[in-house]
């Protein structure tokens, strides 16, 4: 099951290694001058291309918790409206488990020193770090690890955890991915207090991504076969149980071709044959599962 997760991106790996809270670690000029110069492929001026190799990050805040870094981004929004949150797990050379608020990534036109000089007029302790980009990762695909809307989560929300704020990448195969985008939507009514967990499919670089499900809870790992993959999403509650919908997505058609309600753990026996466990809940709240074979009509 774990094989589908992008290496180094488990929320559990958010180890406590706080660098600072209100102050920042200051990198001296010598360290900064040793930062690599950006190349064209990694330029911030080429946002349509994936990041790879070594880049440098201009960092204006660091936190160990997703909620804290989102609060920091909100605080600095007026000064750095396009600042992005990067997870240090996405840089193989950095200490894991940190959230970095980054104002610039490898601008080819300017050196790290030039960028830092500018930033330090506002954030005196801003610093830079080289980053060996993990590929694939949210960073390499230029997807914010914490969606901008997360900054708006009410401070008195009771059901939000750290993990609920952090987006995630699932691998379908070597070239195709699912993005689990965790966001806040004040109109998403439920005791989840605006929590939204959308699933998108994309191939290669996520310039165009396809929404699979707007609210997908308890998502399963995708089961891929040929041009199709299946997964389940929970979208109902009954007693103490999630109830799921199994979905089959066709990569060529770029669309969902089959749905089966109240069915979990889908497996593709062939591109046209799905098996999943049919769910039923009795009046005592007990869950029964029975595996069914379902023919997917063309």
């Amino acid at each position: 099951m774990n094989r589908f997760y992008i290496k180094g991106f488990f929320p559990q790996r958010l180890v406590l290694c706080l660098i600072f809270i209100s102050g920042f670690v200051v990198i001296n000029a010598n360290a900064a001058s040793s930062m690599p110069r950006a190349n064209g492929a990694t330029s911030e001026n080429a946002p349509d291309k994936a990041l790879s190799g070594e880049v440098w990050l201009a960092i204006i805040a660091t936190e160990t918790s997703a909620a804290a870094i989102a609060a920091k981004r909100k605080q600095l929004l007026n000064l750095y409206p396009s600042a992005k949150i990067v997870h240090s797990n996405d840089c193989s050379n950095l200490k894991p488990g940190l959230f970095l608020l980054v104002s610039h990534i490898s601008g080819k036109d300017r050196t790290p020193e030039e960028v830092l000089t500018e930033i330090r007029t506002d954030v005196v302790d801003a610093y830079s770090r080289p980053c060996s980009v993990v590929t694939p990762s949210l960073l390499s695909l230029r997807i914010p690890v914490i969606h901008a809307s997360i900054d708006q989560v009410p401070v008195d929300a009771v059901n939000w955890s750290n993990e609920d704020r952090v987006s995630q990448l699932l691998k379908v195969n070597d070239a195709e991915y699912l993005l689990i985008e965790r966001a806040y939507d004040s109109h998403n009514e439920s005791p989840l207090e605006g929590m939204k967990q959308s699933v998108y499919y994309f191939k290669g670089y996520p310039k165009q991504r396809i929404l699979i499900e707007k609210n997908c809870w308890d998502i399963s790992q995708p089961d891929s076969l040929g041009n199709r993959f299946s997964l389940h999403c929970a979208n109902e509650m009954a007693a103490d149980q999630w109830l799921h919908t199994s979905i089959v997505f066709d990569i060529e058609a770029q669309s969902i071709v089959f749905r089966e309600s109240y069915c979990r753990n889908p497996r593709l026996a062939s591109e046209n044959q799905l098996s999943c466990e049919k769910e039923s809940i009795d009046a005592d709240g007990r869950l029964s599962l029975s595996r069914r074979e379902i023919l997917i009509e063309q």
Partner: protein
Amino acid sequence: MSSSPKARQITSGKWTGDSARWSQNKKLRSLNSGFRIKIKKLVAALEGRQFRPKIFYGWRSVEVQLKLYKKGRTKVKFSFHNAISNDGTPNAYAVDIIDSRYAWSDVPETKEFWKALGEEAKKLGLYWGGDWTSFKDWAHVQMHPNSELGKVKKESGL
């Protein structure tokens, strides 16, 4: 949590055991008094429409809620089911109501019951889980909007 006075009172008193298995009367008594009046009216209205409403859950403890959360069976760590009054007794602002004949089964009659449940709940000024957009909890009815979860949690001393 278990060390707080309220939690001690709950776990040492008569409100122990699996609250889904309590009698209908005990489930009703586990509700906030104002909410209880409305739920009695709701049950009567559903019976008047020839349904057989059964309260599946009234109150349930935060400990049970957190166990479900840790098992991945809910994303909710605190719900209106978990509210506690000042004297440490259950004070739920939410119920789950099913028709005892159909429960959650995938038959048309279940959908008819959910529809009736939503209609009658809203007539009483209650909030229905079938109206939620992020996921559906058809059997769920609550006293307050979800924006008041934090307030109720605080009032519960949790």
